[in-house]
């Protein structure tokens, strides 16, 4: 009974109503869910394990997609130069892309929201310092910052050591590139909330400042953060894909969609177009649906934000 009540209230909620009204958003959400689901469950769902050398058969190399002449139904989207099933590589690649995307967003969120809260609530020198760092960082393109951090890490930790921690470094570098937007938005909202009487009431009662920040202010400034997060996921995925495409992202043993696109590029002009096009299409679909979802969320939440 409680279940039914909660779910029906959710369905009736303004957000859900706005969601149902927009076919684009419903499709985008469905696609995102499909992509995420396929990516997350790829070790179990993919027809083949493409990165296990033992499972590969060189005879199956360069097979075109199943609906073209010479295709094989076992390899729906064709195979690459080593006989790897493209669909499987896409699923595994998407897993890596999404994984890195979400992890870096999480990092940026935690860092940005914390700094924004502290900056907005305590003001003064702390605020000035944090905001100046943010301003300086904003004058660099995000990719450049990620490249910088990644490059430094590469030089500092040569060889296999780098291989091991490549992905965490990548997550950190994309994360560091993106914290500023969270911090600025949260700082603005915190400034507003700080002046409200319920915060003053908590101070009169004797609650400590950090406790007020976490218990009172944080829940009220999270709204805009949600919107930024969804859009940031898309950006993070693209950033990772770009870095991998440039060859400075994930190591080749764990290819992401970006790596796949790069590798497949070599075969584009010799006729095996599917090796690069399908990973590219997958990236587009993923990023586009996440973006559209984020767009809808921003618009739907807007009257409340105002």
């Amino acid at each position, binding site marked *: 009974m409680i279940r039914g009540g909660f779910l029906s209230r959710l369905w009736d909620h303004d957000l859900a109503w706005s969601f149902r009204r927009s076919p684009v958003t419903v499709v985008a959400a469905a696609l995102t869910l499909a992509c995420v689901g396929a990516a997350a469950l790829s070790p179990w769902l993919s027809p083949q394990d493409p990165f296990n050398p033992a499972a590969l058969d060189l005879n199956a190399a360069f097979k075109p997609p199943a609906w073209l002449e010479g295709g094989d139904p076992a390899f729906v989207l064709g195979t690459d130069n080593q006989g790897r099933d493209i669909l499987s590589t896409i699923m595994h690649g998407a897993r890596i892309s999404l994984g890195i995307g979400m992890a870096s967003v999480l990092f940026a969120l935690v860092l940005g929201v914390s700094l924004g809260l502290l900056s907005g609530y305590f003001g003064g020198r702390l605020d000035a310092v944090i905001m100046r760092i943010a301003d300086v960082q904003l004058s660099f393109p995000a990719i450049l910052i990620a490249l910088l951090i990644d490059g430094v890490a590469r030089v500092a930790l040569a060889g296999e050591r780098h291989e091991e921690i490549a992905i965490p470094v990548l997550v950190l570098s994309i994360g560091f590139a993106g914290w500023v937007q969270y911090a600025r938005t949260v700082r603005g909202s915190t400034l507003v909330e700080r002046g*409200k009487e*319920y915060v003053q009431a908590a*101070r009169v*009662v004797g609650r400590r400042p950090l406790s007020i920040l976490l218990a*009172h202010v944080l829940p009220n400034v999270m709204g805009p953060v949600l919107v930024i997060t969804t859009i940031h996921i898309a950006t993070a995925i693209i950033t990772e894909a770009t870095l991998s495409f440039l060859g400075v992202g994930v190591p080749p043993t764990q290819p992401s969609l970006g790596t796949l696109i790069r590798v497949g590029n070599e075969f584009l002009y010799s006729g095996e177009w599917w090796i690069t096009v399908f990973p590219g299409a997958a990236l587009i679909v993923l990023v586009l649906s996440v973006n559209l979802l984020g767009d809808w969320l921003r618009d739907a939440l807007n009257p409340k934000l105002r």
Partner: protein
Amino acid sequence: MLLLRLESVSRDFDVSRPWLNRVIEREPRRSLRAVDRVDLEVQRGETLALVGESGCGKSTVARLIVGLYAPTEGRVEFHGRRMQMIFQDPYASLNPRWRVRDIVAEPIRILNLESKNSVEGRVSELLVQVGLSADDGEKYPHEFSGGQRQRISIARALAGEPDLLVCDEPTSALDVSVQAQILNLMTELQQRLGLTYVFISHNLAVVSQVADRVGVMYLGRVVELAAAAELFSRPRHPYTRMLLDAVPDLQMSGKARTPVAGEVPNPLDPPAGCTFHPRCPHAWERCRRERPFPVNAVACHAVEEGRI
């Protein structure tokens, strides 16, 4: 018995322009004296009201009393155990993300006034005491009207078991019939629980309903302090008279009223001497030079000299 004393309390705010602008445009630092050497005493069990128009410093005094601001000069002496505060805006004084029961329970938890098990019971008791029901604890603030939210604020304040309750314009944002409910409630609670109130308001009629003693403030200074009955029947300071004259006459007695002169000056640049002198019909030389200090609780040269 003396519960609260403010001794020569002043509060300045730094309203200088940002450092870069000051350096480039060669401007000095500017400070605003919101409260200027105020002396007040509050006895246990009474209601002291502070009235004045916008910018007179009454809200700042409220915040100085509860400690939200520290005095730039002077001292605040509190001889009780705890104080709580009720705010003006019923929509901003409750955290919209918290349930009412957590809002009311907060002081109990922070001040450790009850054991864990009895917190819920105490919250229900408080909600009933302010005229709500115990189930209202489950709801969120946005489900209540302005008047009901003020009741929740009062419940929260009472949860802290205060000796002194500072109320900053608690009914100014409410409709008049709801205001009546809240004022009646506050009076009733005072009698029942032996509370002491410091009541801030710009509305003289409301103040006359609730106050035992009234302090009139103008540009950060207390210009007159008297028992309510005295103040409203025999106001002495020219500003108090002007203020009473300006209140719209519901009786429509048609009595002649002295037209009100001028406007409140910019607090950043107050007039010299007695800050009221530009608008005062009784001002003369001395008033322009010398600041009047309270004599018999009225800060006015003309009164002291027996001219009015």
